[in-house]
């Protein structure tokens, strides 16, 4: 049941799009009624204010009952115009909200604003996105470099002291929550030794030319934490790939041909381990983005994760929906890339 690579890619893409839609639908189902209730309230307040502020209009009513009736009527009109009288699952309305989200039109945030003062959810997210990408891509790259090197080294010396230390470190380091290690790092490097700032948000404004430098300095502590907690399991993974490959026939043949062990590991074995490594790289990038919510909250890193955390705290629903969409899209793109890369390198995966 092997299928062509093209069909495989298309099939995966369709699944991923399905997942994106399903996630969006669930999100809207969960927050939609809440959002409508909040919008209803703000419409009611708006109308009340508009009418009572208009002294001329108020004076035309003879008694308060008429005025009340007029206001109520205006409210209903406005609510109907905005489609708020329909439930979230009313098909045209649902379609419209899905379409809006797909085209990145998330509306305006209720409370949160971007550093430049815009309340457009798209602006806010686009402002935070580069910082999250900067931190987590840098961390993932450093982690994978250390991990591949250390993994190859311990894979070449199975059961050596280094190999055992790597495995132990991998198991122990992956048992601690990253955010807890983050708190410890803040304790050690911001309180005991005052090397790095405890809060990772630079104090100078974005427009200042020194902002980038300050941002990089503030990035040091979260970066060190992510690398520290991450490289162990990477090394362990690469080690296992290498150990598996070193038992294969072609390696034995190379050994018999007199090629040095070192050369076999760093050229032939690593080359063969590349496809799974690239796949895991893509997967861990997306995985770290999910973890960004908590990690950024601990370090107060001004990225998408902290934005999400803030949005939850004040229940800023447009921001929550927008962020969920963007995070899901990121997540799916990297899963998709991982899948496709793996399918490209290893045709066995493509079976139905």
């Amino acid at each position, binding site marked *: 049941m092997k299928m062509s690579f093209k069909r495989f890619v298309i099939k995966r893409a369709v*699944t991923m799009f*399905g997942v994106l839609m399903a996630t969006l639908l669930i999100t809207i189902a969960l927050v939609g009624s809440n959002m409508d209730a909040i919008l209803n309230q703000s419409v009611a307040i708006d109308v009340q204010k508009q009418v009572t502020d208009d002294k001329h209009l108020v004076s035309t009513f003879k008694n308060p009952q008429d005025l009340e009736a007029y206001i109520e009527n205006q409210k209903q009109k406005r609510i109907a115009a905005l489609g708020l009288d329909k439930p979230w699952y009313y098909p045209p309305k649902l379609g419209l909200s899905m379409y809006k989200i797909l085209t990145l039109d998330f509306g305006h945030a209720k409370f949160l604003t971007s550093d430049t003062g815009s309340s457009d959810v798209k602006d806010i997210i686009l402002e935070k996105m580069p910082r999250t990408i900067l931190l987590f891509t840098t961390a993932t790259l450093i982690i994978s470099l250390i991990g591949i090197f250390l993994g190859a080294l311990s894979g070449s010396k199975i059961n050596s002291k280094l190999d055992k230390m790597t495995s132990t470190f991998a*198991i122990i380091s992956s048992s601690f*929550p990253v955010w807890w290690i983050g708190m410890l790092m803040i*304790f050690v490097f911001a309180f005991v030794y005052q090397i790095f700032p405890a809060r990772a948000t630079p104090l100078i404004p974005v427009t200042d030319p020194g902002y980038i430098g300050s941002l990089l300095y503030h990035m040091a502590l979260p970066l060190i934490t992510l690398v520290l907690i991450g490289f162990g399991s990477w090394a362990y993974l690469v080690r296992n790939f290498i150990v598996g490959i070193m038992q294969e026939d072609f390696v034995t043949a190379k050994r018999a041909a007199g090629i040095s062990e070192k050369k076999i590991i760093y050229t032939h074995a690593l080359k063969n381990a590349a496809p799974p490594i690239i796949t895991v790289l893509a997967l861990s990038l997306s995985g770290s983005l999910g973890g960004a*919510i908590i990690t950024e909250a601990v370090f107060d890193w001004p990225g998408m994760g902290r934005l999400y955390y803030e949005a939850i705290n004040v229940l800023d629903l447009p921001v929550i929906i927008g962020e969920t969409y963007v995070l899901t899209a990121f*997540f799916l793109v990297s*899963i998709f890339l991982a899948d496709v890369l793996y399918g490209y390198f290893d045709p066995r995966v493509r079976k139905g």
Partner: protein
Amino acid sequence: MSFSSKEVWHEFSKNKIGLAGIGILVILFAMSAVAVLTIPIESFKEWNDPSSWLTFPKSALPAWVNYFLSEKMPEHMILQNPQVASQNVGDIFLTSNIFVVNYSYDKFPSDFIYEYTAKYAGSPLLQIWVTRPDGKEFQLISTSLPQSKIETSYHGFIFSTDDSMMKNIRKNKDSFMFPIDSLLAQDIVFSKTGQNNVLNGYYFFKVNLYNVNSKSNLETSKFILGGKVYGLMGTDELRRNLTVGLLWGTPLALFIGITVAIGSVVIGLVYGVFAGYKGKKTDESLMRFNDIIYAMPALPLLIILAVTIGNSIFLIVGFLVLFGWVGIAKVSRSMALQIKTFQYVEASKIMGQKDYKIIFKHIIPQLLPYAFASIAISVPAAITTEAGLSFLGLGDPTFPTWGQILHDANTYGAAARGLWWWILPPGIMIAVTGLAFVFIGHAMDVIVNPRLKR
């Protein structure tokens, strides 16, 4: 391919790591038993009620740190049995309580609190005086209790941070050879006059309650000298006893971890085996659905679920199961695909055995060893995810989990202020609990896997 429990145990007992895991687990269960037996269930509610922790010290280190320090930190002292005296001069009735303490520590107390219940009619006057080892006498406070025409019981606290107390104490600034304006009450009352160091010796705290016309009583009367160390694990910024919180966290973490793991594995197993056994269209559509859940970003969705639907501990367990079963379903499906080709399965099918009977009698029992290994391996993820949610402030607020303790620690900036005893123990507990299950799962994997490869 059958496993007898004896056989499994025999192999397991040879695995040192697995035994270490069992050992840790036994200790954790013992801690849970201690928590359940010694701490009444109703007191769960008190964890987030600040008034139930008032008589505890604020941000106190664990008591054992004193063994490592040359200058001893004060322990928490609750002075309860004062010398009671009462007298009357004409219309004026006086009740006085005198607390004596021999203060022998090298550091100032963290604060002091007077807790009382006064029974009176009218509006009595409450005064507190301190007589220090050097004979100096300071008035700490002079306040009248709320007016009441009938006899009433009034329960109150007087804190060392009270403004009028600060004013009274600062009146004595001529006694001290250094400026005291910026010092806290306890740092002045317990200080030598020459320099700002602790003056050791006997302190007498005298509480006088004056009333006109009728006698008034102090029914409860406690003088609390806030320690800088307390108990096995110290206290947090909200004066809560961290020993209690950490103990409570153990059964909660085990409950969450084990329930989520069992729930996910049972659902995943049945779902996967059903899909694999049925095959064709059923398999295809069930696995598509599985793919969709598998690719969903769990944490954002968990957050939205907790925000909109609710965050009771049982709901959170349910949400975690919702995302936990997919991986297991995938593996069980591929195992079921193998097993259903075995002759005895095909034989019972030909004999007209019903599908659900074949699944539950012939296929699932074969997967039980794998299921137990997966349960052990799923527990740590469930515990850390719940801790993460609690850390974001989305956990069940009525139960103090380790994640919640860390959430509070982060809210009060414990890391940047160096309150290490608030941060280290909960995280270590999370990791150790996770490790115990990782060890057990690892050991079971070793037993289970070579046989399944056959």
